[in-house]
C-alpha cells in the first residue's frame, strides 16, 4: 500500500501497462518532453522512448489516427488536453470509432483510450472548464469512465487500456492532487461498468460522477447533521451504467438526486433521471432531482463561476427537495 496522488496513480497504470504490452503507445500535446500539462505522463518518454510522442495541435486527426492504429494492431492512449476540445474529436468518434466493429461485421476491434480532463472551479474560463460528458456518452460503441479515487484511477485506466473497444477516460483538473491509498502489489484491473457505493445511506440516493462525488459526499455529511441519511454512489462508469447498483439503491431509499458537472439540458443527468424512471418508477416517492451546471457558458470571475458550477450546497438542497 502506498499513498499517492491521482495523477501518480494514472502514471503508474500507464507504466505498468506499457511495460506489459509493447503495442501500447501514448501520444498527445506536451505529453513527452514535458510529461503532460498535468504531469500524468511524466517520465514515460524516458522509459519508453518513441512510444511516447509529443504531437502537433491537431486533435481531430490525432483522434482519427488513434482509431485506425487501434484497428491495426496497436493500443493507442491519446491525451486530449482539455475536455473542452472533445468536439474536435467527435467526428472521429461518432463517424469512425463507433461504427467499424459493427459495420465491418466484427472484422475489427478497436482498443484505444482517449484520456482527457474537464471541469471548472479555478478560473480557466469558458473554453477550458466544461464537462461535455453527455456528448461522448451519447455515442454507442464507446465506453465512458470517470474515476474519482487514485485506486480507481489506476484500476480503470488499466481496464480501459485492455478493453477491446474505445474507452473515453474522463479526468478532472481538481482531482489530480487528490491523495489516496493504492495497492501497487495488486495486479488486478478494474471492471468497467461497476459503480461504487461511496457512502451508505437509507433516505435518498445521490448518484454522482467524477469530482461531483466529492461534493455529494460533502452534501451527505451536511444532510447527516440534519438527520438525513444519504447514500452516495460513485458511478465510475458513465457508459455502460451499473443498473443493478442504481435500482438497488433507489429501491431502498425511494428518492434520488443525480449529479453531473455538465450542463443540465440534454445533459448526463437527463439520462440518469430517465433511466431511473425506466427501471424504478414504482420505487420513486418523488421526482428524481437533477443537479447540473447552469445552462450557460462558464464565466471567468470567481463569484460568477461559483454560481454556474454545481456544488455540495446544491446537492444538499436537491436532496431536501426530493425528501420534502
Amino acid at each position, binding site marked *: 500500500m502506498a499513498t499517492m496522488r491521482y495523477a501518480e496513480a494514472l502514471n503508474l497504470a500507464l507504466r505498468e501497462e506499457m511495460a506489459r504490452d509493447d503495442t501500447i503507445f501514448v501520444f498527445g500535446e506536451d505529453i513527452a518532453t514535458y510529461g503532460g500539462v498535468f504531469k500524468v505522463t511524466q517520465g514515460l518518454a524516458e522509459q519508453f522512448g518513441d512510444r511516447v510522442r509529443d504531437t502537433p495541435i491537431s486533435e481531430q486527426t490525432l483522434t482519427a489516427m488513434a482509431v*485506425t492504429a487501434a484497428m491495426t*494492431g496497436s493500443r493507442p492512449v491519446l491525451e486530449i488536453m482539455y475536455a473542452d476540445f472533445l468536439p474536435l474529436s467527435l467526428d472521429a468518434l461518432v463517424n469512425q470509432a463507433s461504427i467499424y466493429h459493427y459495420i465491418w461485421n466484427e472484422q475489427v476491434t478497436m482498443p484505444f483510450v482517449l484520456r482527457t480532463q474537464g471541469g471548472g472551479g479555478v478560473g480557466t474560463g469558458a473554453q477550458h472548464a466544461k464537462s461535455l460528458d453527455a456528448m461522448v456518452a451519447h455515442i454507442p460503441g464507446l465506453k465512458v469512465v470517470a474515476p474519482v479515487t487514485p485506486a480507481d484511477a489506476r484500476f480503470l485506466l488499466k481496464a480501459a487500456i485492455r478493453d477491446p473497444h474505445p474507452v473515453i477516460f474522463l479526468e478532472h483538473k481538481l482531482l489530480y492532487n487528490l491523495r489516496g491509498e493504492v495497492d501497487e502489489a495488486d495486479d488486478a484491473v478494474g471492471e468497467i461498468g461497476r459503480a461504487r457505493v461511496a457512502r451508505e445511506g437509507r433516505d435518498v440516493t445521490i448518484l454522482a460522477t467524477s469530482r461531483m462525488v466529492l461534493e455529494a459526499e460533502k452534501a451527505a455529511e451536511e444532510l447527516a447533521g440534519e438527520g438525513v441519511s444519504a447514500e452516495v454512489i460513485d458511478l465510475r462508469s458513465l457508459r455502460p451504467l451499473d443498473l443493478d447498483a442504481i435500482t438497488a439503491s433507489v429501491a431502498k431509499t425511494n428518492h434520488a438526486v443525480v449529479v453531473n458537472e455538465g450542463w443540465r439540458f440534454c445533459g448526463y443527468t437527463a439520462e440518469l433521471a430517465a433511466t431511473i424512471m425506466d427501471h424504478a418508477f414504482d420505487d420513486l416517492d418523488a421526482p428524481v432531482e437533477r443537479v447540473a451546471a447552469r445552462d450557460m457558458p462558464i464565466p471567468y470571475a470567481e463569484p460568477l463561476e461559483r454560481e454556474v458550477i454545481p456544488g455540495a450546497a446544491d446537492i444538499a438542497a436537491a436532496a431536501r427537495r426530493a425528501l420534502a
Partner: protein
Amino acid sequence: MTANTPSDHDLLEMHRRMVLTRHLEEKLGEMHKAGRTRGPIHRCDGQEAVGVGATAAMAADDYVTTTHRGHAVYLGRGLDPRRVVAEIFGRETGYCGGRGGHMLVGDVETGMMGGNAIVGASIPAATGMALSMQLRGEARAALAVFGDGAAQTGICHESMNIAALWRLPVVFLLEHNAYGLTVHHSAQSSVPDLAVRAAGYGMPGETIDGNDVLAVYGAVEAALQRARRGEGPSLIEARTYRVEGFSTSDMGGYQPDAEIAEWRARDPILLARAALVDRLGAGRVEQCETEARAEMEAAFEAALADPMPAFAPHVASAPYAARPEGGR
C-alpha cells in the same frame, strides 16, 4: 505485382481489373435505372486507372483506405467481385454482411481498410495505420486515396504535417477528378495544382496522368518503396475525370458536354487496351475483357440470389448496448 516493371501478366491483370470495375459501374447504372439499388451509388467510370494502378503497386501486407467512390480500389485490391456486389446490395454474403453498403466496404484480410463516406477521412485513417506500423518497426506502408474535394479539409493538412514530421510510411494519392460533388475544382481550391502543397510539408509532390494506369502504378510503387524505406510520405496528384456524374442521385447539368467528351476520348481503358493490343495482340486482350465481363455478370447473378441479413440485437460480442426491454 510489386516488381518495378510490371510483366505482361501484370499489365493484363491491371487491365482486367479496370474492365471488371467498369462493368460493375455500368451494371450498377442499369440496376439504378431499374430501381433496384438502394441509397446513392458513386460510380468511378473513367477513373479506374487510379484505384487499379495504385493497388497493383501495393505489397501484400500494405494497407489502403479509400473514399465513397472506392470500387476501383476494392476490385483493384483483389476483392471477390461477388462479395463486393453482395455488399452493395446489402446481402448477408457481402464483405460486411450488408451492414456497410457500397461506401463502407472493408476487408481486413487484404488490408483494404475501407471506403469512407466522410470526405477526407481516408487521409488520417491511413496515417494512423502508418504510425502503428512505424512504431512496431515494420517495413510496410499505407496508401490513402482521396479526392480533390477532400484535399481542402482540415484533416488533410493535419495528416500531411504529422506524416511528414514523423516520416510516416504513407502515400497520399490525390484522385483529382475536377469536381467535388457538383462544384468544380476552381470553385473549391485556391490553387489549380494541388501537388504544390507538398512543399509546405517538405515532402515530394508530383502530378501524374491518372488515366494512364502505368503512370499511376509507377508513381505509387516508387512512393510506397520510399515509405517502406523510412524516407517518409509523398503526395501524388493523379489527374482524371468523373464521366458519369457524382452519384446515382446526381441530376446533372454542371459538367460541360465538351469536357466530358474530351475525357471520354482519353478513357483509361481505351488507353490501356491500345497499349496492350500492341504488345500482346488483340485476341488476348479481347479474351481478357470478355472474361472480366463474364466474371462480373456471374458475380451479380450469384450476389443477387444471396439472402438478405437478419437483424440480431448486438449484445454479447459488442460494445453496443442491448435493446432495452421492449423499446428501441
